[in-house]
């Protein structure tokens, strides 16, 4: 909520560490620091390791600006083009995010600092490159203390990776359902018998859980003192981080594709259809005056996201299948792509708001006001495959765009082989309104249609429309 006098809007996801808070003002991302956090920041700003992390782009751009009362100091951060949540990332994304967190922590330890926490929410993306955003997390290292963020790192990063790498279980639903991640006690139930011997399981899952149970009545103050007395050192803390890093590097997604991985090859497009479609999309996006954000819904291998990226500032490529997103992410990462963000999300079940009061982690619709919305070969999957009323599909597509946004949407006629295959799984006559004329009428009610093109196959129509126009 924006404060009426100051124009400040507190970030609803920033409250857990009371020493510093993120807020927004006139489109800027600011962080207020109390006295203690200010002292930590001044030490951090003067340290060589932090400057190196900034230069390498591993930590989000940060500078001190005039203090905003009541804070002792205020920082201005680089804007992340599109905020995403770990349950919208693919395996490779979560792994690279985890590795960056460990990399940042290792650099901090070498420089006499540590991070107060170890959450997956400390990371965001610039396209296919992760970035550490929680500058408030750095604090000077106290000799003899282990990493306070280890448990959080396990619950929100390591355990989801272990689930996927060792068992092939998609981690996204777990992270989406639990803002604090997966507890050791839940994890150990997955890893009984010989699975205890899988890399990382015995120590980080079973021993961790057992230690938690055995020490549930010991305070962390006492345990910290005991560890210090027993000789826990900075070198040991660094060795622990190296050990976790080695483990994370070993984890990989088990092979096993989904039928969507082959979609571009098997979906029945002719080469002419594809060319016509590419041309239509290119012209539509190029015609928009400097679009900041383009959304590619059902992005698959990212063909159209890449076309959009030639003209738009940033592209969010949404795809339902984690394996497909992972393949896309790895390709984009290899290309050094910084302007296309691939995300895992089912359009019929988009990310809801999560965490405290359901606003700590904003839902997808609340984060998205795109200047261009691409919905290619998507409508029939929602309307026939998922039984969403056609009018509701059109509404949702229009709602994701800002007023005046360009909507490029493909309508697959009921006679098209793909639509027929979907319809064959449903009772005859279930979708009498799934017709081109009905779709066009609904689209015209929400948008101004400015262009349409039949694909050469004759069973698909492309529309370009202006949202609310």
């Amino acid at each position: 909520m924006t404060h009426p006098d100051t124009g400040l809007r507190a970030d609803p996801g920033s409250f857990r560490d009371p020493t510093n808070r993120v807020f927004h003002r006139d489109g800027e991302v600011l962080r207020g620091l109390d006295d203690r956090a200010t002292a930590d920041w001044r030490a951090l700003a003067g340290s060589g390791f932090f400057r190196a992390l900034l230069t390498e782009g591993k930590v989000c751009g940060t500078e001190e600006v005039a203090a905003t009362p009541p804070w002792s100091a205020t920082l201005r951060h680089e804007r992340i083009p599109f905020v995403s949540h770990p349950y919208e990332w693919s395996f490779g994304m979560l792994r690279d995010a985890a590795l960056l967190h460990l990399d940042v922590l290792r650099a901090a330890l070498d420089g006499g600092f540590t991070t107060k926490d170890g959450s997956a929410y400390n990371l965001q993306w610039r396209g296919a490159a992760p970035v550490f955003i929680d500058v408030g997390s750095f604090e000077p290292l106290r000799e003899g203390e282990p990493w306070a963020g280890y448990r959080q790192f396990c619950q929100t990063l390591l355990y989801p990776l272990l689930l996927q790498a060792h068992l092939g279980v998609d981690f996204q639903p777990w992270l989406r359902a639990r803002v604090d991640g997966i507890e050791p006690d839940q994890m150990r139930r997955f890893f009984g018998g010989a699975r205890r011997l899988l890399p990382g399981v015995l120590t980080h899952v079973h021993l961790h859980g057992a230690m938690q149970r055995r020490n549930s009545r010991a305070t962390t103050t006492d345990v910290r003192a005991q560890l210090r007395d027993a000789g826990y050192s900075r070198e040991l803390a660094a060795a622990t981080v190296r050990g976790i890093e080695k483990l994370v590097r070993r984890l990989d997604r088990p092979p096993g594709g989904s039928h969507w991985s082959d979609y571009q090859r098997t979906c029945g497009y002719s080469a002419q259809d594809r060319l016509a479609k590419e041309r239509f999309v290119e012209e539509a996006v190029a015609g928009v005056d400097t679009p900041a954000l383009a959304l590619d819904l059902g992005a698959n291998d990212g063909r159209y996201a890449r076309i959009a990226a030639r003209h738009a500032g940033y592209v969010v490529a949404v795809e339902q299948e984690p394996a497909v997103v992972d393949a896309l992410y790895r390709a984009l990462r290899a290309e050094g792509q910084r302007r296309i963000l691939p995300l895992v999300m089912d359009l019929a079940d988009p990310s809801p708001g999560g965490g405290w009061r359901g606003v700590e982690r904003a839902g997808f619709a609340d984060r998205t006001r795109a200047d261009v919305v691409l919905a290619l070969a998507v409508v029939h999957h929602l309307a026939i495959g998922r039984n969403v009323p056609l009018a509701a599909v059109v509404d949702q597509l229009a709602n994701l765009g800002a007023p005046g946004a360009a909507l490029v949407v493909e309508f697959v006629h009921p006679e098209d082989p793909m639509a027929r295959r979907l319809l064959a799984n449903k009772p005859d006559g279930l979708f009498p309104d799934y017709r081109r004329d009905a779709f066009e009428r609904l689209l015209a009610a929400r948008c101004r249609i400015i262009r349409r093109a039949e694909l050469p196959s004759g069973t698909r129509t492309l529309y370009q429309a202006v949202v609310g126009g």
Partner: protein
Amino acid sequence: MHLAYLDAGSGSLIVQAVVGGVAGAAVAAKLYWRRLVARFRRQPTDQR
């Protein structure tokens, strides 16, 4: 005592020593040994 805003978890702190290789395991062993010794030292006074 300077405490982090996050409850690091007592067990989560100790297990990190074990993860840190042989030297770390030695630290964990020392911690448990000291706890054991402390318990025996305390007992006679408790019984009085």
